[in-house]
């Protein structure tokens, strides 16, 4: 956190001053470790084993915050008797289908809800990263469940969890993660001792956690711990994701993502969402309780915002205009399609996949096989110059005179040359004022896309083709101003907020959205950001003039709420758990919820409220159902539906690992997304042969002095001089083994590429001991490329493409490689080197074995 989010780290230092203990877990000793109380080096890719060990420690010692767990989690809920655990199936759950490598989830359901899984198609959901739509809410489940308040029932979640994690002992943590038991116990004790009524503990991860083939389950494990310890919805608690880009949260909420529409509404699927009613019912799930009951209003209002007058109740608000998914249209599938010649044109908008995405060669070969490419950036980045300055040009794989891709480089406006909102990592929208006009041809994306749309609409003005109606009917009348005819960002923000169609009055809350066409709402979760016609995101009341929650600085979705599920900061009876941790509570005299934050609960619903039998929607939530966006109102220790790879986290080895999974016969995530394409390959892992060809683990991350793929730092002299070269950090032990000298050169080889880096021999890296075997890890920054003031090889070139099955994010935080002293060869010799490794590793094409246990045959057969 000190390394990648230094200014956020000031609050950790504040906490430290007040006596907080800080533990830091990382494969390498970083600037964060230097300031932590205790540092735990870990083998990259084994976090679930570590966190699973904590879960076991909590359950075995009954250190959970029992009152919280009983009231606010699904610990007491009874699970179907059809369910079988990884304990029984050697690392697989019940329902595994080895033909599609997906699970049927009927057996995972709550008891009596088995039919809930009936219509789901796991393969389809994986292809469309369906899990992502649950960023704002849980998957649907029926509201009425069987419970055992004593937590003794063998099939209640609490007992299932206990059995599932029983083998995650301190010894197993040591064997898997390389973390000595004493250290593990120090962490376990501190975490549990600092949670409860009087104290809370916080778990902070940077989004490297997401770049694993089990990334979602990493975060799930963290959530389980925080729920068991009562750390959710409370001040000083939570699971905090430190996201790495100024508005990456915003670009998920208002998605430039293939499978989502604004506000986590799903992009329609061609078979599941043929009609408008299919679509909204798949979101609202008639009969379930909670706020999603209003999905029809959110969907109708979005379409109304898109298509204005053309969108009417009679034509289902132009629902027919929406494009339909048929499968995986994610960025990696798309790049492979580029290589196969299926994609004509590509826009890059402030993003540099030639350096920043996994498998750089695939990225560049894809771009070299387009009709045209539009790059919009501040700087001439590697993704704009792949045709003249790339490793493939050096090896002859891309020949400029033979590369047909037409490239447009359009200069972009910087953050001070345009106005608009960023949504930061805590869901807070902050409006930026414009300081000055952009220089010369530089323009904002708002300008570019507004005017591109304007020109396209002019070109289609005379068209009577049905396919062009969606473009012609689009509401595209944003007012412009100034010499550059810059569209009004505030007008767009008002549309995002939503308004009453007849009067133009901005809505104040998403509860005002209607399904009859009388409201238009661009992104329902953002409704309120323009309440009363005031740009709430532009509020800048000084921190000196308001309390510590600072509710009048910017605006947080939803409803300016700063801590989600904050009903859980009070006990079931509505009183704060403790005076020092009070946050939101029930004011019995006034008959309403109150506190420092906007209560995440119906304001007037008393803690004692119990819904009448059969009540659905919001009224179905009881007065102590703190997790209001979940179908059962509970925080989920066990996920009966919605995840591809299991209802509980399970340690699987990374797709590339030198280590056989110590916990199960199943080696790696059995549902991970694998692409069969000749350009892609996966280095062998046990139980395959030839794992000795790539014996070392490498992991990558950021340096404080640089930013992601370097496009905003290698081009900036002040930053370039601070970290001026690509390097690899190695432990003294590995340096001795390989004969690497400090400040000398080394090259690293994977099945995809070979790259070189200068060597930093440092005590900050350590070998790890697992089962008596020593594992070496190295670390590299992923900021470098061939353009800019300081240059170097790109480490993402070493990675292949393997994805998490829930969200289709690639595993690019851990891989295997070989390391040799000296510089890498160049030209054809470089290709020969990699080919030689591929031959020796047996990488002759075809997918690696996915199932590595025979348990599935027992189950399926």
């Amino acid at each position, binding site marked *: 956190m*000190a390394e990648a989010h*230094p*200014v956020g*780290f*000031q609050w950790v*230092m504040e906490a430290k001053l007040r006596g907080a*203990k800080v533990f830091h877990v990382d494969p390498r*000793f970083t*600037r*964060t*470790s*230097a*300031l*932590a*109380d*205790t*540092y735990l*080096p870990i083998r990259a890719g084994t976090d679930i084993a570590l966190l699973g060990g904590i879960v076991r420690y909590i359950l075995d010692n009954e250190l959970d915050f029992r009152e919280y767990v009983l009231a606010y989690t699904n610990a007491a809920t009874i699970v179907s008797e059809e369910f079988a655990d990884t304990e029984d199936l050697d690392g697989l759950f019940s329902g595994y289908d080895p033909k599609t490598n997906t699970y049927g989830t009927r057996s995972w359901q709550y008891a009596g809800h088995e039919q809930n899984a009936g219509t789901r198609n796991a393969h389809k959901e994986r292809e469309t990263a369906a899990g992502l739509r649950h960023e704002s809410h849980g998957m649907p489940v029926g509201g009425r469940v069987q419970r055992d308040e004593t937590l003794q029932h063998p099939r209640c979640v609490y007992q299932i969890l206990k059995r599932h994690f029983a083998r995650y002992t301190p010894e197993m943590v040591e064997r898997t993660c*390389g973390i*000595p038991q*004493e*250290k593990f116990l*120090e962490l376990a004790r501190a975490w549990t001792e600092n949670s409860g009524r009087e104290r809370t503990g916080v778990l902070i991860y940077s989004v490297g956690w997401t770049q694993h083939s089990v990334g979602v389950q990493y975060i799930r494990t963290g959530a389980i711990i925080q729920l068991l310890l009562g750390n959710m919805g409370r001040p000083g608690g939570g699971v905090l994701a430190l996201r790495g880009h100024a508005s990456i949260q915003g670009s998920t909420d208002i998605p430039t993502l293939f499978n989502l529409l604004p506000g986590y509404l799903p992009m329609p699927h061609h078979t599941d969402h043929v009609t408008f009613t299919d679509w909204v019912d798949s979101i609202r799930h008639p009969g379930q309780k909670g706020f999603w009951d209003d999905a029809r209003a959110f969907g109708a209002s979005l379409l109304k915002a898109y298509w204005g007058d053309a969108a009417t109740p009679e034509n289902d608000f132009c629902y027919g205009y929406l494009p339909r998914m048929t499968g995986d249209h994610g960025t990696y599938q798309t790049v492979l399609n580029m290589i196969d010649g299926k994609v004509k044109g590509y826009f890059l908008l402030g993003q540099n996949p030639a350096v920043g995405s996994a498998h750089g060669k695939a990225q560049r070969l894809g771009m070299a096989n387009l009709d045209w490419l539009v790059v919009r950036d501040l700087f001439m980045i590697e993704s704009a110059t792949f045709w003249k300055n790339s490793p493939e040009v050096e090896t002859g794989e891309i020949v400029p005179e033979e590369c047909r891709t037409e490239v447009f480089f359009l200069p972009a406006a910087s953050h001070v040359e345009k106005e608009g909102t960023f949504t930061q990592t805590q869901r807070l929208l902050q409006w930026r004022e414009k300081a000055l006009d952009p220089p010369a041809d530089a323009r904002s994306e708002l300008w570019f896309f507004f005017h591109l749309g304007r020109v396209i609409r002019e070109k289609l003005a005379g068209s009577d083709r049905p396919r062009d109606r969606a473009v012609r009917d689009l509401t595209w009348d944003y007012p412009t101003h100034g010499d550059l005819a810059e569209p009004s960002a505030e007008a767009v923000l008002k549309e995002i907020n939503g308004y009453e169609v007849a009067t133009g009055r901005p809505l104040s809350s998403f509860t005002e959205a209607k399904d009859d066409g009388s409201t238009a709402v661009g992104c329902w979760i953002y409704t309120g950001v323009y309440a009363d016609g005031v740009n709430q995101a532009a509020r800048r009341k000084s921190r000196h003039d308001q309390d510590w929650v600072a509710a009048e600085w910017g605006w947080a979705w939803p409803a300016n709420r700063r801590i989600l599920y904050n009903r859980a900061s009070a006990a079931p009876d509505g009183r704060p758990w403790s005076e020092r941790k009070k946050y939101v509570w029930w004011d019995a005299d006034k008959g309403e919820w109150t506190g420092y934050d906007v209560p995440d609960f119906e304001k007037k619903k008393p803690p004692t409220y119990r819904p009448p039998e059969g009540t659905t929607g919001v009224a179905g939530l009881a007065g102590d159902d703190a997790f209001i966006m979940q179908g059962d109102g509970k925080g989920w220790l066990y996920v009966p539906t919605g995840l591809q790879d299991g209802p509980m986290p399970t340690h699987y080895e990374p797709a590339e690992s030198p280590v056989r999974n110590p916990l199960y016969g199943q080696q790696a995530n059995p549902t991970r997304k694998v692409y069969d394409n000749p350009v892609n390959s996966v280095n062998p892992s046990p139980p395959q042969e030839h794992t000795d060809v790539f014996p070392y683990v490498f992991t990558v991350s950021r*340096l*404080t*002095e640089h930013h992601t793929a370097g496009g905003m730092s290698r081009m900036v*002299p*002040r*930053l*370039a*001089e*601070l*970290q*001026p*070269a690509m*390097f690899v950090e190695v*432990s*003294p*032990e*590995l*340096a*001795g*083994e390989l*004969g*690497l*000298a*400090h*400040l000398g050169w080394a090259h690293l080889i994977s099945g995809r590429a070979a790259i070189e880096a*200068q060597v*930093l*021999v*440092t*005590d*900050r890296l*350590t*070998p790890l*001991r697992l089962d008596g075997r*020593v594992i070496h890890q190295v670390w590299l920054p992923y900021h470098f490329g061939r353009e800019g*003031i*300081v240059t170097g090889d790109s480490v993402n070139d070493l990675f292949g493409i393997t994805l998490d099955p829930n969200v289709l994010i690639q595993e690019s935080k851990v891989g295997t490689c070989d390391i040799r002293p000296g510089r890498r060869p160049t030209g054809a010799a470089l290709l020969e080197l990699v080919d030689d490794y591929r031959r020796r590793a047996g990488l002759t094409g075809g997918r690696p074995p996915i199932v590595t246990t025979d348990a599935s045959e027992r189950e399926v057969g």
Partner: protein
Amino acid sequence: MIEANSLYGPLDPAPDAGWVEAPARMGFFTDTSVCIGCKACEVACKEWNGVPDSGFDLLGMSYDNTGALTANSWRHVAFIEQPRPAGHRTPPFAGDPTGAAASPGSAAAAAGTAADTGTNPGLPPGRPEAAARMAAGPDFLGMPGSQPPGRATGPESRTDFRWLMMSDVCKHCTHAACLDVCPTGSLFRTEFGTVVVQEDICNGCGYCIAACPYGVIDQRKGDGRAWKCTLCYDRLGAGMTPACAQACPTESIQFGPLDELRERAAQRVAALHDRGVPEARLYGHDPTDGVGGDGAFFLLLDEPEVYGLPPDPVVTTRDLPKMWKRAGVAALAMAAAAVAAFVGGSS
């Protein structure tokens, strides 16, 4: 009038330099125990003061690629990797299959290289054995020799480790030899008690370079003039905080009236001692030291030499100071020499 203590001993320097109704003396307290080594101070300083780059070389001195305070770097964050206890509850590498520490060897290898900072004397090669001693800390028993890192002599395994970071800056001495030797009046004492080079006066004679007991002052090539931290004289005049202190994410760099900072620093040291960090100590805070105390003083977690600071800054000779420019270069104890010869020069 000229009083005895104008040239040594405790003194409030601004009134002594003729400022009537001078404001409180302002300074920096840099608390290295909370420094996260982010280098925001280096960048914020360069952005505000328009300081040029100081070269794009990988120095291999841990994460320090700046190397030293120069005319082109007025803040410098030193990074020291040491196989020493850091107050961690459990040593970072306890139980791991480690061998001997490499940090002394790595520091030695890095010290042998030079880089062009665009300044003079800039960043000359340092002395490997001194750098190794620095990285190992005072308890280190031997030089790693010529073997590759990892095969070094020394303890059998390394379990303890700490990573020291420290943002260095001009000390704005109470008795500033640079100012005293300046023949043009370019270097002067401001009303805030700080020491500033006036770029419209400096003629590049370079006397100040040799005079500085900390090796801070340096000349810019091509320009020839001496440049260093001004404690953001222009910002101070507007009632603002210097750029580095304003940016510092963790309040490692604190700015304020020196009296207040000294009090705060004493409390911080006491608190750290209470929390089991006995190695915390102040540097440059003492008005009775060889320079009359510094306007920019530090809380350190090791001997000053480890950070590349002179242990007893009194001396101003021509050659010794620049040896301090490189972290670890001058870990050997240096005897104090007379300052008087230079003091006469300006009066």
